[in-house]
């Protein structure tokens, strides 16, 4: 796909790679892209903690590792607590954390491991003010266990435990707004990001390394396997999610909200194209689509208001 001219001009990804070929992600995996960017920005002096999620597998089985950085695998619900413990140990042992030459402590967890089973540990991490970064890569379901709904699954989506069918047993709850729960803790820094906008994501990663205290990034990471979408549509889907305001990009710092371009500057695009590209939405009726569309717009209005009032 032809990149818009302005994007072409600005594209400045660091050349160095610390996320190696040979990882075992599916074709078109948004999470794998995200990991690549995180490692590009932070480099080798980063301690990763990964709970049970797709990335457990993506990183490679023993004795392999696709990461050129230390990586600790942990239990599903523990990311926030483990990175808190790592940071405490670094402090006790006198290591420099964050800053130019400091160690970056990163938790990398899926939406199930964050919005559901890991929410308590995440809250503890934020509330206690650990000096690390928690990244929730959001592919909107339990993909590693085979596509089950999480509280981050959107209204109307098919998953293997919301399977559609004649009785339309679909997901009927709106996507949990984890970022709002995070912001309620008044963390040092919180942001949404998307694999379709690597520069925006990388800027946010850099920021998280300079700010003292806990940071959180919710990274939109399409999953072609679980979304029943073509594997070459990952970026397009991620971009549409932003352009439709389904997943707007914004950041929160010092009590202030800032909506980031490329979130829609005028009217968001209709959800239609975003929905059409994904088999997981195939059971949705027109009314279902309307419900989702209205939810998206009302959330978008709310965010704009927040940015206006707390801008």
């Amino acid at each position, binding site marked *: 796909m032809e990149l818009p001219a302005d994007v072409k001009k600005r594209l400045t990804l660091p050349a160095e790679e610390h996320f190696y070929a040979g990882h075992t992600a599916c074709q078109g995996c948004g999470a794998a892209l995200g990991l690549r960017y995180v490692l590009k920005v932070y480099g*080798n*002096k980063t*301690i990763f*903690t990964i709970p049970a999620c797709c990335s*457990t*597998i993506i*990183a*490679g*089985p*023993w*004795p*392999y*590792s696709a*990461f*050129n*950085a*230390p*990586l*600790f*695998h*942990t*239990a599903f*619900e*523990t990311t*926030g*607590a*483990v*990175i*808190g*413990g*790592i940071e*405490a*140990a*670094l*402090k*006790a*042992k*006198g*290591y420099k954390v964050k800053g130019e030459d400091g*160690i970056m402590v990163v938790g990398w967890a899926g939406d199930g491991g964050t919005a559901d089973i890991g929410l*308590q*540990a995440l*809250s*503890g991490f934020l*509330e*206690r003010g650990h000096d690390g970064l928690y990244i929730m890569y959001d592919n909107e379901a339990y993909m590693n266990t085979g596509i089950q709904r999480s509280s981050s699954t959107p209204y109307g989506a098919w998953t293997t435990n919301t399977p559609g069918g004649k009785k339309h047993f679909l997901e009927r709850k709106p996507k949990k707004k984890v970022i709002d729960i995070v912001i309620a803790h008044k963390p040092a820094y919180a942001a949404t990001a998307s694999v379709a906008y690597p520069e925006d994501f990388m800027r946010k990663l850099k920021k998280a390394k300079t700010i003292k205290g806990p940071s959180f990034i919710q990274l939109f990471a399409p999953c072609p396997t679980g979304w029943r979408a073509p594997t070459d549509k990952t970026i397009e889907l991620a971009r549409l999610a932003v352009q439709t305001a389904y997943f707007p990009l914004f950041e929160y710092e010092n009590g202030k909200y800032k909506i980031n371009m490329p979130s829609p500057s005028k009217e968001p695009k209709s959800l239609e194209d975003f929905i059409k590209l994904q088999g997981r939405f195939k059971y949705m009726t027109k009314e279902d689509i309307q419900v989702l569309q209205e939810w998206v717009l009302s959330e978008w209005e709310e965010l704009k208001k927040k940015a206006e009032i707390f801008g």
Partner: protein
Amino acid sequence: MPKKVISGNYAAAYAAKHARVEVVAAYPITPQTSIIEKIAEFIANGEVENLEYVPVESEHSAMAACIGASATGARTFTATSAQGLALMHEMLHWAAGARLPVVMVNVNRAMAPPWSVWDDQTDSLAQRDTGWLQFYAENNQEVYDGVLMAFKIGEHEKVNLPVMIIESAFILSHTYDVVDMLEQEEVDEFLPPRKPLYSLTDFDNPFSIGALGTPADYYEFRYKIAKAMEEAKKIIKEVGKEFGEKFGRDYSQMIELYKTDDADIVFMGMGSLMGTVKEAVEILRSEGYKVGAAKVRWFRPFPREELYELAKSVQGIAVLDRNFSFGQEGILFNEAKGVLYNTGAKPIMKNYIVGLGGRDLTVNDVRKIANNMKKIIEKGELDKEIDWYHLKR
């Protein structure tokens, strides 16, 4: 050496301080709380340096944070009890599997419901298969000594496993007794800084810990833990001997034998109730009974060889279990019987379920048990194998 009259919990806290722990992540639960309160007080008073205290939001997170800290190379300590220990269960496996020598004091407390805060060993014994070493303290002194030895044993290059030091609710945790503490220099000499097997700060040689182990590899990972546990028996004895030589309290035996040499009947058990039993042995001996006591200090690794040696020379063993495995029997009884099955040593063994949920075991109870055992030995057959001794009738 400074003697202090302190509770079992304070003994644990002082030992952690003297061990120069670097990270403590813990969550309050009765009757453990005064351990972490005391540690917080050390920090508040500036009595410790380079100690990070993480007041986590649950015991599950306490163990998870300890695991993160220990994997980063820090000497790490926590404490819990009963419900808290049960909540940690998943992460207990994780600490052992990741080969992290976290040291934890568990205050034995009965599992709910019904709610109880009193002594019972089922909480810790239910964790027996997690890969943790388990030491049952008889008194406050053993809590203090046990914590110091736990770091040295767990961090040993041949072990690299977590260690649980276990004390009784209230009977030790909140009861004040004389504890002979060591000077800081003595502890420093006995317990040098930790040299971790690996650290997440090794950026020059980045690795992944806990990655997927396929059926082609998982098995060997388990074998390595099994081997380390076997190895730990030697290390326990070495460290216990060294402790004795340096500080006068010998822990080279995994089972402490008390007047068993000429005993026909031996009372076997763990933890604080063995204090009462030893007292009873003294009294019963003065009354002409040929009895002794075998205090199992280390439940994991299990002292198979020492038990076999003991079993060869006695007629009967009364196993006093302050715990129970529903659908089976007392847990120590079960283990001890199992060890002896393939040996030539087959004393008569009977299981007395005692003290659950903090019910007292008195000297008079031990006398009754001795009389019962005497009858059984004379007859040469058991009246019953499992005796719910205190049961109201």
